């Protein structure tokens, strides 16, 4: 029986190969897209899952209920961890964590590696398996260093690494360390990534901050005792907070902070570490948390594509069904039961789905590298073999065949035997379901087109908006790897002095945008001025900062080596000046460090966007205060040959620092990097829209083929009666154009709502314009019209005698 079914199924599929190929291509494309999409989403949602105690690990953070809203910070003060461990027995393990670049040296070999400062509990909490060394005491020695296998191999080659002494250059101090453990390389699927681990005591300024509750310098994670319910932990912390954070609370109060409904101005809270990959409010563990909207929109688009493909499948199968009504009639006459016919048609569906699946996966393999490049994804096809994914795929497959196969099969089985044997195959009804499905398809497609246009407009706007400084001709060089910024700046200044293409050189604490080093810094300072608290971003700069970046000076002057007092002078931006609020800000003295020594405002610059355009321009103070390091060197070159200038500067750098990689990048590259997420989203929308439209049009094409078949006689009669070719094309297309129009109208409010919400995340944004909707509709209608034309023109041009005779 089954063999018979498969045999007839195969022959039927072959006979309707044009239809079935369209069907197969549509479904295969959809399957390929969905596989890539769902793998990506799966990847994003399974971050850090390798930690066996994941569900019991929490990150601690602070909340300040400021007048302008609650401010969440994941940075905590140094004494917090020992105090919590001592005072709360529920805390089983707790570790501080901070990172820095460091040079590790063994013999002649020197490597620039990612170093983490952690407490001893770190390796007891997180599942980073040791290959060599003892888990219980691997970090018990103050001068122990734990290294990854890759580092061990790079540094020691085949030589055993355990118990070797290496030299670590941390914050420009070189110290000997003993390799006490070697870890398996860290999965790229981890929020915590490092090459070296040392005790937190080595963290710069550790001793100075040991009792400083007001200096927040690092993050901290807690593991609770088994069986402890962490839900009550936060409320238990209230006395702890009152005891240790009293000065901070006082300052907040003065600043106008209001108690929340529980009466707290400042409190500690915990967030599950398992969610840290999406914790954009906490800034993630290592920075770069992923906004959940990104995987969620991926899921939504994946579902859209799948729905559109299923709709196609249904419409195409129903259409095909008409041509097979006679067969159904004959089979029924010969005694086939409904069940037998249902199974027969369902087997055909399964065969098409299986073939689509195979083609889809092949397509997936062919596209995966491009996909990974475009979406910065780290997925691999081997993830398909994961039991969860495999199970998901099987479920999805069954679901698709059930939805896409069952309805058409049911339709066919329901044909009236007598009618179909007489040759009345064409159903006279316009097919409410078919029209509804078409509307759904085109609604989704139009929605995606609108999203594409709007995200594209916004990104374009972000890229082209003047930021108030020169971003095209300024190169930003991260000073990393334990180089002293000050010294590096001096060396580079000297080195570049004689380069004709270099206009000026300066250094700064914060970068502009996000550089090749991938890190972002900001420093906020609060102080009392008159009767209010002033909060300002601090940017440590060097001479020629304004000149190098072409920042417009409104009043006063730039820092100048000729003025001896400039090391304690500041330049502020307009917003800061407004916040200070006094007349004659220029030249006035401000108590920035709450100390006796006030600093003088020597210049006011025009506001410029020193942060990404997600955020407004905040108060900013430029200072030469040597407490802040120089982390970036900015070099302005003369316009003209930027490539040659880049190479020349790189060469100079390599002459000075042969062991340290040159990571310089143009500032406009850096600012673009701030919108990576947006670009990624826009990429998703574009691909989604293109695929949705293509699959929808394949479906429309097949339906138009069927409609033309059904209406051949009508077309013949109309032509005989004198209708023009144009008239017939219009007649055949109008029905569909109306549906597409309806679909667009349905998509408008949804698209507007979605994109308006998305735009709210930008301080600087475009307004949604009506013509975007018009354009999207026009595009959808045009595509639909062209698709239908293939068939309608052919039908209209056909000789009517032929179609009438065949009846």
């Amino acid at each position, binding site marked *: 029986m089954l063999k018979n079914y498969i045999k007839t199924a195969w022959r039927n599929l072959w006979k309707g190969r044009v239809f079935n190929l369209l069907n197969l291509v549509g479904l295969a494309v959809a399957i390929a897209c969905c596989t890539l999409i769902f793998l990506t989403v799966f990847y994003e949602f399974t971050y850090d899952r390798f930690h066996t105690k994941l569900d019991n690990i929490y990150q601690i953070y602070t909340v300040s209920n400021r007048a302008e809203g609650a401010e969440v910070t994941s940075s905590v003060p140094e004494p917090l961890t020992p105090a919590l461990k001592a005072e709360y027995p529920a805390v089983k393990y707790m570790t501080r964590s901070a990172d820095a670049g460091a040079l590790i040296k063994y013999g002649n070999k020197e490597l620039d590696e990612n170093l983490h400062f952690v407490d001893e509990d770190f390796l007891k909490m997180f599942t980073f398996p040791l290959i060599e060394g003892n888990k219980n005491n691997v970090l018990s020695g103050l001068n122990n260093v734990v290294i990854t296998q890759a580092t061990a191999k790079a540094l020691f080659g085949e030589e055993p690494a355990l118990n070797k002494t290496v030299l670590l250059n941390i914050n420009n101090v070189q110290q000997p360390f003993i390799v006490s453990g070697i870890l398996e390389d860290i999965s790229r699927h981890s929020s915590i990534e490092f090459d070296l681990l040392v005790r937190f005591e080595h963290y710069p300024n550790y001793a100075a901050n040991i009792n400083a509750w007001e200096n927040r310098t690092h993050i901290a994670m807690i593991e609770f005792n088994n069986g402890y319910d962490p839900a009550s932990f936060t409320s238990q912390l209230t006395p702890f907070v009152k005891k240790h954070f009293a000065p901070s609370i006082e300052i907040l109060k003065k600043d106008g902070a209001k108690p929340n409904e529980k009466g707290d101005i400042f409190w500690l809270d915990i967030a599950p570490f398992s969610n840290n990959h999406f914790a954009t409010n906490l800034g993630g563990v290592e920075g770069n948390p992923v906004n959940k909207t990104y995987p969620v929109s991926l899921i939504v688009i994946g579902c859209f594509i799948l729905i559109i493909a299923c709709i196609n499948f249904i419409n195409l199968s129903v259409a095909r069904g008409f041509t097979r009504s006679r*067969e159904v009639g*004959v*089979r029924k*006459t010969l005694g086939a039961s409904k069940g037998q016919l249902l199974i027969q048609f369902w087997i055909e569906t399964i065969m098409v789905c299986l073939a689509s699946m195979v083609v889809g996966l092949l397509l997936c393999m062919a596209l995966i590298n491009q996909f990974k490049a475009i979406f910065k994804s780290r997925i691999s096809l081997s993830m398909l073999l994961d039991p969860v994914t495999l199970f998901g795929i099987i479920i999805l497959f069954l679901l698709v065949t059930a939805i896409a196969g069952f309805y058409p099969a049911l339709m066919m089985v329901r044909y009236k035997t007598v009618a179909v044997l*007489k040759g009345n195959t064409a159903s006279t009804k316009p097919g409410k379901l078919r029209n509804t499905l078409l509307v759904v398809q085109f609604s989704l497609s139009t929605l995606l087109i609108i999203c594409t246009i709007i995200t594209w407009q916004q990104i374009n706007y972000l890229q082209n908006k003047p930021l108030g400084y020169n971003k095209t001709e300024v190169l930003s060089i991260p000073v990393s790897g334990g180089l002293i910024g000050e010294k590096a700046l001096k060396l580079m200044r000297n080195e570049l002095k004689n380069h004709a293409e270099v206009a000026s050189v300066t250094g700064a604490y914060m970068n502009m945008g996000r550089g090749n080093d991938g890190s972002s810094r900001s420093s906020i300072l609060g102080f009392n001025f008159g009767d209010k608290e002033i909060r300002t971003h601090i940017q440590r700069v060097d001479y020629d900062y304004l000149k190098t970046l072409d920042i417009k000076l409104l009043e006063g002057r730039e820092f100048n080596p000729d003025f001896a007092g400039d090391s304690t002078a500041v330049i502020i931006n307009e917003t800061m000046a407004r916040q200070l609020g006094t007349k004659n800000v220029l030249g006035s003295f401000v108590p920035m460090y709450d100390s006796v020594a006030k600093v003088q405002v020597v210049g006011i610059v025009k506001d410029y966007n020193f942060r990404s355009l997600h955020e407004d321009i905040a108060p900013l103070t430029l200072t030469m205060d040597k407490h802040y390091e120089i982390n970036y060197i900015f070099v302005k070159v003369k316009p003209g040959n930027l490539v040659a200038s880049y190479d020349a500067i790189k060469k100079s750098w390599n002459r000075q620092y042969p062991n340290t990689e040159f990571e310089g990048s143009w500032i406009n590259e850096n600012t673009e990097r701030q919108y990576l997420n947006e670009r990624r989203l826009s990429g998703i929308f574009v691909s989604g829209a293109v695929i949705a439209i293509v699959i929808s049009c394949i479906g429309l094409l097949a339906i138009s083929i069927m409609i033309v078949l059904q209406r051949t006689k009508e077309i013949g009669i109309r032509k005989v009666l004198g209708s023009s070719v144009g008239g017939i094309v219009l007649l055949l297309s109008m029905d569909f154009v109306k549906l597409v129009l309806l679909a667009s109208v349905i998509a408008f409010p949804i698209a507007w709502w979605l994109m308006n919400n998305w735009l709210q995340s930008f301080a600087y944004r475009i307004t949604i314009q009506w013509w975007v909707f018009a354009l999207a509709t026009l595009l959808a209608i045009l595509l639909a019209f062209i698709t239908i034309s293939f068939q309608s023109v052919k039908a209209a041009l056909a000789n009517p005698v032929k179609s009438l005779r065949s009846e």
Partner: protein
Amino acid sequence: MIKITNLEKFYRTEEVETVALNKLNIEINRGEFVAIMGPSGCGKSTLLNILGLLDDPDGGSYLFNDIEVAQFNERKRADLRKHNIGFVFQSFNLIDELTVFENVELPLIYTGVSATERKERVEEVLSKMQIMHRRNHYPQQLSGGQQQRVAIARAVVNKPKLILADEPTGNLDSSNGNEVMELLTDLNEQGTTIIMVTHSEHDARYSHRIIRLLDGHTVVENIMM
């Protein structure tokens, strides 16, 4: 074998109701060969469809082997049909995607006959219809006469008690048509009841009895000698 009493069938569109069968009474005995004749639209095909349990009447009674089947549901009708009735159509209605062998095998599949028995019975009937040499051909590769022979083979393979033929020679030339009529006569002589709708007086002469229909009721019955 068949007894219909006051059988009625209407076709309705939104505005018009057409009477296809108007209180029709017919009785057909086992082993008879009956021809049904009449002008277009007189209800011949409607009658044949109801007799073949492909369609249900709107009124009256239909006794098949003394069982009232007028109110049977689709499943019961399908069951009765596949075990008792074979169909021969004017347009053959062979399935193009299946070979001669597979077309004939189809009713046996639906009645659940085992594969070995199917092969035996299909080959037997194909030999009888002298079409065995074409067993692996597809319908389009055959002449009209051959196609109709396959269709008859398919109709009889299940050894039905009744064969309903709707203008079986309508699409054939006269020599092929005669061949088909000879086949039907042979089957009838072996005991199968045959009811045939036809326009052709020539074909009707093969039957025992002609029922002439006009506007949905019997006008005259001729007994052939």
